[in-house]
């Protein structure tokens, strides 16, 4: 393959050759011939020596799973396994477009001798959750004068799983520390009267109460049999139903409804696990992509992160299938947090909610309202603004009907935008803890 430089030399050669013919000048012809012959004379030799299959590229990374926003060092080693020296070799190691090259360069140009190796590294910042690949690597070999080149793409790729961002959790921890309340900042213990150790009050004796609970002093004072009551702390079981249908992907990149839903699910799982609650996560669209049943084991958080990292906005929301899948595996009473934009037909949604309630569970719908996640109306022209407002109004009408319909099952619909998505879910969680719903 001739490079741009090679073509320039060819052009100059033809220019002098034709000038020589036109003006009958042998010097110009000779110069033109020198240039053209000089361009091609070493080409067969270069073809023999430039055996790129003798080049091996090895890529190493420190971690295969990182959080969105984390930094990652990539080390690339190029080995010359052939018996020839390569005069000029360029290596481009490709990384995902959305990531940021923080330190160093993903490019290397040098000479590599037979049997030797060269290494370089660079630091990337992983952006946006999902499954990503580093690579392929482009290896370009040029001749010394840069007139010809051979290119090969080494397709070996390194898979990296990027978890959703951890910044919300970090922020929560920071605020907790700042207020000197420790990790349990904002928690509300769910207490029920029962067999605990903390004194709660007195009540009248009813037949069947154990005699040891009778408080004789109070009985003597009141003149009737009184028993002591104790509180016991109960844990709550939550299930985050994350809708990953196509419509959830609307909005600015990194700030789509789905991204917020996932951030909310991460935050909720973290808070729940910190407070010893059981939290499960289900990612669904027209099928159930992933379901992590509620648990408190140490690596539960990572299982949830794995499930959320892979979520992609596609398909449509089949609430019934998702609810049927989850309820069939969840016997204990749970509180379902539906993180969905409710942009599907109403029948299946209501049936799904009915199934949730019929199975003894409770539910809250945290619903991102589409227009609030898209471009601000101020950025539109007059026509687009009117259209956008009309669409928003229609969608809002639907919302009102949804809320009315779901309230029949005692299910609250919380409409949220980007600003109040996370506060809303924290508020709902705390409220549920206070009320003690879905105890087990």
């Amino acid at each position, binding site marked *: 393959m001739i490079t741009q430089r090679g073509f320039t030399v060819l052009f100059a050669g033809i220019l002098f050759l034709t*000038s*020589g*013919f036109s*003006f*009958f*000048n*042998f*010097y*110009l012809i000779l*110069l033109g*011939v*020198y*240039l*053209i012959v*000089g361009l*091609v*004379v*070493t*080409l067969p030799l270069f*073809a*023999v020596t430039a*055996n*790129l*299959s003798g080049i091996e590229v090895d890529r190493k990374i420190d971690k295969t799973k990182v959080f969105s926003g*984390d*930094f990652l060092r990539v080390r690339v080693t190029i080995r010359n396994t052939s018996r020839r020296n390569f*005069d*000029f070799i360029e290596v481009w190691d490709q990384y995902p477009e959305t990531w*940021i090259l*923080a*330190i*160093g*360069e993903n*490019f290397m*140009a*040098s*000479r590599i001798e037979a049997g030797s190796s*060269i*290494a*370089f590294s660079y*630091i990337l910042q992983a952006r946006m959750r999902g499954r990503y690949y580093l690579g392929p690597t482009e290896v370009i070999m040029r001749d*010394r*004068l*840069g007139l010809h080149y*051979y290119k*090969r793409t080494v*397709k*070996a790729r390194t898979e990296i799983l990027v978890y959703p961002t951890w*910044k919300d959790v*970090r*922020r929560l921890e920071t605020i907790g520390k700042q207020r000197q309340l420790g990790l349990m900042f904002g928690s509300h213990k769910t207490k029920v009267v029962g067999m605990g150790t903390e004194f709660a009050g007195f009540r009248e004796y009813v037949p069947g109460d154990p005699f040891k609970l009778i408080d004789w002093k109070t009985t003597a004072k009141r003149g009737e049999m009184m028993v002591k009551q104790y509180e016991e702390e109960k844990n709550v079981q939550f299930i985050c139903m994350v809708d990953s249908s196509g419509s959830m992907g609307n909005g600015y990149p990194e700030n789509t409804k789905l991204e917020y839903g996932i951030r909310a699910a991460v935050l909720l799982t973290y808070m729940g696990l910190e407070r010893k609650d059981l939290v499960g996560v289900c990612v669904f669209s027209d099928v*159930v992509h992933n379901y992590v049943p509620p648990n408190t084991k140490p690596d539960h958080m990572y299982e949830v992160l794995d499930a959320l990292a892979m979520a992609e906005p596609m398909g449509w929301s089949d609430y019934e299938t998702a609810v*049927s899948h989850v309820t069939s595996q969840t016997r204990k009473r749970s509180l379902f947090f539906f993180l969905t934009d409710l942009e599907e037909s*109403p*029948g299946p949604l209501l049936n799904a909610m*009915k199934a949730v309630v019929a199975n003894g569970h409770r539910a809250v719908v945290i619903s991102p309202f589409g227009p609030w996640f898209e471009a601000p109306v101020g950025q539109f022209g007059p026509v687009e603004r009117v259209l956008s407002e009309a669409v928003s109004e229609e969608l809002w009408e639907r919302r009102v*009907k949804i809320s*009315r*319909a779901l309230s*029949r099952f005692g299910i609250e619909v919380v409409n949220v935008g980007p600003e109040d998505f996370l506060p809303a879910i924290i508020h709902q969680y705390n409220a549920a803890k206070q009320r003690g719903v879905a105890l087990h």
Partner: protein
Amino acid sequence: MSGRWDWGIPYEYIVTVFRLLSLIMFFLAIMIVNGVASPLLGGQVLNNLVGGLYNTLILRFWYMQPYGVSGPMMNVNEVFTSFMNDFIGILMTLWNQTFTFLYFLCAAVGIALFLQSLVRMDHKFVIGAFISIQLILVIAAFRDVAIPNYEVFPTDFYEFLVSKAQILALVSFAYLESSYQMIYSHSVGKPIEEREETLKKQLLALRMATRKQDRMERGEKVSTTAMSRSSGATAFSFLREAIERKVVGTKDALENMDAVADVRRLQHFVDELLRNDPAAKDELTAKAAAPSESYVIRSAVTGSAIRLMAVVGVSFLLMNPWVFVALLNLPTGIANSVELLQPEFMLLFLVPVVALFPFAAMLIGSIVKREVEIEGNLTKEQKQELKREKREMKQKKKKAEKARRERTHVRRKRRGESEEKDEWDRAIEDVARE
């Protein structure tokens, strides 16, 4: 007109100016009047009329004598001829001067590009300088100025080797060759130096940014220095982005906690990396990849020498027709013809011989099979895992579809005929009924 003062000069000056103005007016008059009146009277009649008027009113009335003409001019056609002759004379002088100007222009451009090529080491400057200088000779050849040439291309190799034209062509070609070799040496060693320099700047910029943030958090006043703008931030895209997000250098910095945290975390990451891995810095700069200077120089000299010899040898064979004529065993009439001495004759051999080299390279390439691409290094387990994932997804979709069909079937049976109602109201009713 002898170059000395004459009392007639002011008069001649005024007359010349007046005559030029009157000529313009005259032209305009002819154009306009001809255009308007030609459909009625015919163009020729008017031409004569206007010409007569001009002769009578302007030339005779003022009795004008143009520059360089001995007697007075009484006819407008004489004025035109004189004017055209002067005009062509000026154009010819300009034409001749243009080539002198072009020589100087090419030389100036060539020198400027040559100087640039020494500093920037870019092939565009090298080839630009080369072409510009050679263009002087091309223009000279066009103007038939004596430049190195052969009457008949020499048949003796030694004679060819020591000829002026060959030496000049070889020196020119050697300049191009050596410049490209220098660019090669530069491009092999320089990226590593630049890499090291960039890394230094990046780390410095990062540290400065972190310090600045610390000071801002403490409520101290922060000033933006020229250094931080030029050497630090601009060289570092990550930090630049952080600055664009108004993290560093504004009072609102603390509001953007994420970006502040990003810069901090990067600082910690780099610090930890450099502390824990002694080879990390060398790998980031790719220091080990730098080739030895002595090898680069040695190989450049030997490589160039071999190339030059090959180019001169092959070119001589191509340009000297006798070698090929002897090989082809042509008839005497053709072998002794004048056509063989024409420069275009060498094209007969140049094109196929030059095409032979890329063809040979292509053949070698197809034998070596260098373009075989290495596939992704997925292990057997990984491939199986991917297959399993796909299979599972297919099954899930099938199952969900089946369940949906069943549900729809049951509902249809229960509901019977549907009515024209709002879908939400209908859904609420349906669910309530069930």
